[in-house]
């Protein structure tokens, strides 16, 4: 009985950990951003929610929308 509950607890813990990893990875990959590259090879990444990101993202969305009609 004890062994069975230990296995159940382990399975539940693994499922929870997997779900957390999945949600965090997915949210990181699909986060909207604008990356600005300069001639010296440097890059500035502007996330949605930052002042610069929120200024540039609507322009990027507009460009996407106009290209797709």
């Amino acid at each position, binding site marked *: 009985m004890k062994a069975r509950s230990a296995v159940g607890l382990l399975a539940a813990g693994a499922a929870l950990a997997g779900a957390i990893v999945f949600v965090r990875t997915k949210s990181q990959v699909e986060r909207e951003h*604008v*990356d*600005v590259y300069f*001639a010296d090879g440097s890059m500035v990444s502007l996330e949605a929610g930052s002042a610069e990101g929120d200024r540039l993202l609507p322009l*990027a969305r*507009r*460009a996407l929308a106009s*290209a797709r009609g």
Partner: protein
Amino acid sequence: MVACPRMDAAQALADLTEISAQIEAAVLADHDGSVVASTLDDDAAAKSFAEAAAELLAAADEVRTGPGSDPLVQVEGAALDGSVFVAKDERHLVAAVTRSRPTVGLVFYDLKTCLRMLEREEEAKAPKATKTATRRPTTAKKKTEEAESESS
């Protein structure tokens, strides 16, 4: 054969969409957003896309304006339903849209290749135009000299 920069640009874009499977649509424009060539059938959509890309580039240019900072060369805007890429050289900008989560480095490489191809085409034509321009006054001068010698 008459040199046509718009045909060269169209060829450069055709090559771009052929080599890059990720690119859905692309436009080549001047820095002010005037369309040079486009893969879009609708001219109004191409104009709107080029203007939006030029605007994005101009807005991104204001991100880092410190003294001695290097100029902006390219921008990627990643939205949930796709990405827009804009790269520029001294004369033109090229903008492209892709599906979401594209191979960023590869798309930028292809856009830069497109700009380089166009630049090379234009450079190859430039010396011929200069030669033609310099040859004409020489011929005219020769004819004037011949006419003068005939009359005297």
